[in-house]
């Protein structure tokens, strides 16, 4: 354990599955419409009318995470604050609506207030404006994996000295109604505050460590990847794979086999359309004292992300 190791000091969640990280109901599907979100209660009565849903969720989750961390990001200079956000379908419905306007009445009918959000990085850019995140800001967008990837990219940037504090998370909003994956849409956001153990004032929730790889090319190196990920860490009790059913997805089966070789039993849950579900599981895992756990997700295009979550210990284990 080093003073430079990043620990999670704040968790913010806004989701139709709940907002208490420890009590998230992650079973089954939930509606991804916007009705569950009270923008005035989360963000205030004014200033967010033209902000798209995924950005509102990200703003709200960030506020919650920063408050949960005792406001620690505000205690470092703005240039020492960094942010990494994963999103894949965060602006899909917005783009669809804009395209209907451009191909219909024409671009002159686009809302100038909404137009900047055609660029997916403005979701995190808007958060940066609210929280003075001037160190750096990354938006990652690979399907399914980008949320967990944000943890890796963010931790790497901190290790490289690009910031002291890290905000890392995921946000998604419902896909257009006519999209074939609409029923699997996600809505909501998760944001974690991570900072070096040596400067953390708040009692940390735990730590997380992430690896990414692509299958099938990485299959011969899977054991090596797992050894590196689990190095100097207590063995995880279990793993959760957010992946297509193993009979339909060889990626999930390959990963589950590899974990079995390491003595880690893996459960599988079906993925949703975006990058959020693995991050909700991570938030819940860290939100409760418990044993280390692996969380993984795979994408049909071969991308995989694997996070070792180490919550604070159970009282009877300390």
């Amino acid at each position, binding site marked *: 354990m080093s003073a430079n190791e990043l620990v999670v000091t704040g968790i913010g969640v806004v989701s139709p599955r709940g907002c208490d990280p420890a009590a998230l109901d992650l079973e089954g599907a939930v509606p991804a419409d916007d009705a569950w979100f009270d923008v005035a209660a989360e963000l205030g009565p004014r200033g967010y009318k033209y902000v798209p849903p995924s950005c509102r969720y990200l703003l709200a989750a960030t506020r919650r995470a920063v408050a949960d961390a005792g406001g620690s990001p505000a205690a470092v200079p703005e*240039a020492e604050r960094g*942010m990494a956000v994963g999103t*894949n379908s965060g602006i*899909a419905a917005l*783009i*669809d609506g*804009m*395209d*209907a306007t*451009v*191909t219909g009445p*024409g*671009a*002159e009918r*686009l809302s*100038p207030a909404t137009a*900047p*959000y*055609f*660029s*997916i*990085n*403005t979701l*995190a*850019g*808007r958060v*940066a*404006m609210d*929280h*003075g995140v*001037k160190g*750096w*800001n*990354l*938006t*990652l*967008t*690979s*399907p399914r994996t*980008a949320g967990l990837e944000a943890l890796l*990219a963010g931790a*790497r*940037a901190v290790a*490289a000295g*690009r910031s002291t504090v890290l905000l890392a998370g995921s946000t998604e909003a419902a896909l257009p109604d006519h999209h*074939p994956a609409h029923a699997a849409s996600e809505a909501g956001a998760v944001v974690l505050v991570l900072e070096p153990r040596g400067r953390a004032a708040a009692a940390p929730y735990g730590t997380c460590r992430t*690896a*990414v*790889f*692509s*299958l*099938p*090319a*990485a299959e*011969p*190196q899977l054991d090596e990847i797992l050894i590196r990920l689990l190095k100097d860490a207590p063995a995880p009790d279990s793993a959760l794979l957010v992946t297509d059913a193993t009979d339909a997805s060889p990626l999930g089966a390959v990963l589950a086999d590899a974990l079995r070789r390491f003595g880690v039993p893996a459960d599988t849950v079906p993925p949703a359309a975006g990058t959020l579900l693995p991050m909700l599981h991570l938030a819940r895992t860290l939100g409760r004292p418990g044993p280390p756990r692996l969380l993984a997700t795979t*994408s049909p*295009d*071969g*991308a995989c992300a694997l996070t070792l979550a180490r919550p604070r210990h159970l009282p009877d284990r300390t």
Partner: protein
Amino acid sequence: MTRVLITGAGAVSGLGAGVEAMWRGLCAAPGDPPRRAADPGARMALPLIHRAPAEEGPGGRTTRLALMAAREAVADAGLDGAHLARGAVVMGTGGGDADLWERPLDPDRTEAPAFTVASAVAAALGAGGGATCVSNACSAGGFGLAMALDMIRAGEADVVVAGGAEAYSRVALGCFNRMRAVDPYACRPFHRDRAGTVFGEGAAVLVLESAGHARRRGVRRHYAELAGSGWSCDAHHLTAPDPEGAQIRRAMTQALADAGVGADAVGCVVPHGTGTRLNDVVESEALGAVFGERLGRLPLYSLKALIGHTAGAAGALGAVAAALVLDRRTVPPNVPLGADQDPECPVHLPQGGTVPLTGRHVMVNAFAFGGNNVSLVLEGRTA
């Protein structure tokens, strides 16, 4: 600190397919005007674009451009399957495969995820070390390279195939029209009458490799070293730069510090320079703050005047241009501005012919909506 070499390069843009086509285009500086997009759905006043020659095939247009550049870069580097199996891919793209996720005008077309550019490249190359798609808008390609640099330094990979790619997006162009950010004539960075930018399509990919790995596999030649990067975020406005330019100055100075060199070591800058009124002034002032009295004689190579603003590919295409400048010790001529250069942008834009490069370093800037800034410093070979 681990040295990171550029051992392969690939590019496609309005100048054609391939790095050599790009270099010929840079030296000829044809300055071809943009064309109207061949898109019946583009109901906007200025549907202007510099098209790139994307290969036909399955998948979205951005992915096809990325694959062209990636395959060229990997072949150029002489990487084989064993090297690639442990290699990672990082691709920057602002909008991904926009043609696959914008509203289909063809009712038979199926919808698909937009941001599979990196994973498609990884799958095509057999790269197993992860596929990261970074979408920091017009700085995405620069961030892709900078992330790859950090990955190699951190020991996560010895080889990273990294860059950026962008193709025509009807919605992006429509939004730029609505924001009055499209120049009706051309992309004219630092021109007194510039009125916005003009998009271009393109992709650029570099093979980045630790010096040790390159040595072990017998690499004899590299273009340059990716010596440093600096990152920052304006946190000021969704679309406009902070007029003070403090964060883009910080990105540049941090990149120099990361490379371990002073500003006086830089012999050329490939600026972000988009043709947008405020951006070019802010960047000129920031360059002046970093390079001081040298600003008026430090050669800038204004790439977007030639190929348009390639958005998520722009930083990577700028890095390919910089690598070629270092490799050939030559700064290509800028598209002529003559007396039309904006006096508020007192930068040095050599015109009319190539000039020899002095110094061993070239800086590349890439800035974006959302205030995302990245600067890269490339270092030339010693011999």
